[in-house]
């Protein structure tokens, strides 16, 4: 099974392909070396022989056959590598160190390879030789003798064999090393890929917390692993958010639904007057409206948080949005005897969605008006941050504020502090602001103002250029 997988793996196939190419080029290279070394030696031998034959030919033409036989006899005695045989036209030996004419058809001027038996101290041995025949002719063109000049090429052959076997081995070793290396590499890569497959299977089976192990080398597989992990992270976050939404729906929609149902049930249990029925139905509608509002808010938060919201972001000057929302709420403040101060720095620019930003600001202002109480003062300010890189949007009131320990908690869904239970609201306002802030890559912070009194909601956006 594993071998099967190994053989069919892409990496292994690549390894084989490279191996073939590599061995091929090594073979070509080594052939070239062989041709240059062994071939060179062979050519050298042939040249030397040719030169010697030429020399002997000269000896003959100057001093005659007798002199030639003397020279041959002398050279035969002093040399072990050079081989000579001067024979009569019917191939009877006259002089030289080859005992008899080799078993090849005699042809003038043609290279011949032959074997001969030589007497050495170790006895008779078969040797290879290469040589050329020279026909000694008298001045009438009559062949009077035949001369064979050859070289014992035993040594050369051995060297050639050595080179050849060395070349053969190196090709073999190259292939073997490549194969072992390739298998090791592909095994290694396959094992890492197997780990990824294993992780993804675990994830598919519902274990979202599993992550691909990263070797730390920072190579491509690690990068892929990191990307997969980031993806899994995102999926896990989304799933968690989803679960939270369902939990919240269960929590905050179930109880009012239950209330609604009980109210109707109890009313139906006994005969009531027309007016009573009417009143209960009206209350039911109000309750249903609240349910719808909560449901809508939950949906908006979920949509904004999943990042799939199709809301378009554009470059805009937030001053206009702030001014519009302030105008919308100004009469409400006046009615509650609250003062609304709006300090807006013009010509700032951020990337935002008008509708969502308006909604976030509206929620913050709504909260301030609701919880700061009658006679308090509320301030909205919009200004560039100290470093010029940010835009700060602040809604601040001097009401009772929130206890320091609860500042972070109130941003969570459905958290409504005991003190505010009497007020109407879903408890989703600040979570919506938080979600909108996150979508805008803005920072949402709740603080106690410097005066130590009231609540300060701060949205920090990045300046868009």
């Amino acid at each position, binding site marked *: 099974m594993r071998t099967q997988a190994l053989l069919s793996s892409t990496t292994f196939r690549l390894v084989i392909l490279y191996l073939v190419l590599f061995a091929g080029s090594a073979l070509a290279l080594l052939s070239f070396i062989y041709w240059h070394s062994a071939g060179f030696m062979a050519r050298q031998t042939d040249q030397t022989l040719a030169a010697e034959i030429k020399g002997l030919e000269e000896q003959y033409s100057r001093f005659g056959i007798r002199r030639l036989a003397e020279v041959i006899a002398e050279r035969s005695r002093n040399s072990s590598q050079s081989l000579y045989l001067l024979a009569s036209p019917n191939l009877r030996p006259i002089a030289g160190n080859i005992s008899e004419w080799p078993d090849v058809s005699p042809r003038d001027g043609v290279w011949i390879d032959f074997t001969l038996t030589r007497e050495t101290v170790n006895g008779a041995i078969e040797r290879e030789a290469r040589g050329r025949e020279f026909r000694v002719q008298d001045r009438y063109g009559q062949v009077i003798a035949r001369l064979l000049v050859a070289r014992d090429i035993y040594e050369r052959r051995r060297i050639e064999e050595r080179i050849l076997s060395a070349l053969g081995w190196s090709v073999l070793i190259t292939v073997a090393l490549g194969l072992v290396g390739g298998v090791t590499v592909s095994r290694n890569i396959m094992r890492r890929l197997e780990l990824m497959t294993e992780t993804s299977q675990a994830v598919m089976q519902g274990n979202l917390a599993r992550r691909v192990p990263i070797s730390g080398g920072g190579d491509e597989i690690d990068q892929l692993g990191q990307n997969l992990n980031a993806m899994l992270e995102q999926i896990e976050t989304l799933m968690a958010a989803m679960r939270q939404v369902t939990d919240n729906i269960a929590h905050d929609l179930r109880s009012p639904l239950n209330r609604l149902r009980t109210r109707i049930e109890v009313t139906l249990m006994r005969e009531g007057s027309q007016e009573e029925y009417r009143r209960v139905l009206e209350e039911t509608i109000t309750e249903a409206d609240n349910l719808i509002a909560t449901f809508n808010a939950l949906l908006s938060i979920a949509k904004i948080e999943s990042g799939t919201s199709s809301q378009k972001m554009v470059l805009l000057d937030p001053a206009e949005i702030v001014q519009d929302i302030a105008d919308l709420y100004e*009469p*409400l403040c006046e009615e509650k005897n609250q003062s609304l101060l709006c300090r807006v720095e013009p010509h700032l620019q951020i990337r935002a969605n008008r509708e969502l930003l308006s909604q976030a600001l509206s929620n913050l202002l709504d909260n301030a008006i609701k919880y700061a109480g009658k006679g308090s003062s509320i301030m909205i300010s919009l200004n560039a941050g100290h470093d010029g890189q940010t835009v700060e949007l602040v809604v601040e009131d001097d009401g009772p504020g929130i206890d320091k320990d609860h500042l972070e908690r109130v941003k969570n869904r459905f958290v409504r502090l005991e003190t505010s239970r009497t007020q109407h609201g879903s408890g989703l306002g600040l979570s919506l602001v938080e979600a909108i802030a996150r979508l805008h890559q803005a920072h949402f912070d709740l603080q106690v103002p410097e005066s130590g009194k009231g609540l300060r909601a701060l949205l920090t956006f990045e300046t868009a250029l």
Partner: protein
Amino acid sequence: MRILIVEDDQEAASFLRKGLSESGHVVDHAKDGMDGLHLAESSDYDVLIVDRMLPRLDGLTMVEQLRGNGNETPVLFLSALGEVDDRVMGLRAGGDDYLTKPFAFSELLARLEALLRRKAPGQVQTRLQVDDLEMDLLQRTVKRADQMIELQPREFLLLEYLMRHAGQVVTRTMLLENVWEYHFDPQTNVIDVHISRLRAKIDRDFQSPLLHTVRGAGYMIRADTSAS
């Protein structure tokens, strides 16, 4: 008025039918897009209520085909898809208004009313009048019984919208969408305060009130003909 409801949810359709009949309208019902298209083309309706997700032919395509055939009957889309994008798609397909489910019946009624009135090809109006309240749209002035009334720009827009729909119920959501161009629901009902402010300017110093609150629905501006 003759109204065609194109809605595949039988129960929802029968509630709508009942409610609209009780409000004095004649109502037909088609249960899918094909039937709807057929009915809308074969008889003359004053307004169509079209659900977006329908069997056989979806609401958007149905309205697109209707418009392609030159039928200009006002269309109000009903949909469970309430994103701004869905709304834009609906309006682009040829819808005249868009209402997200679940909705209050009073909201639907008010919006239908607004659509029905709009059907009359509006010649460019430069003056609006309700009883002795006059609005000059060119000079941007408001007079009641020949007395000038100073209005803030947003108050002017608010009054203009109300006067353009004089005699019709205008809901808070309609005002928020058309006067302020917001499509979200502010937690507190800020519109009421704006209305009472406007009311203080146009009604307080005069005998008969023009700006009325319609309980459970919204507001209406009309000449106070009877004492009711």
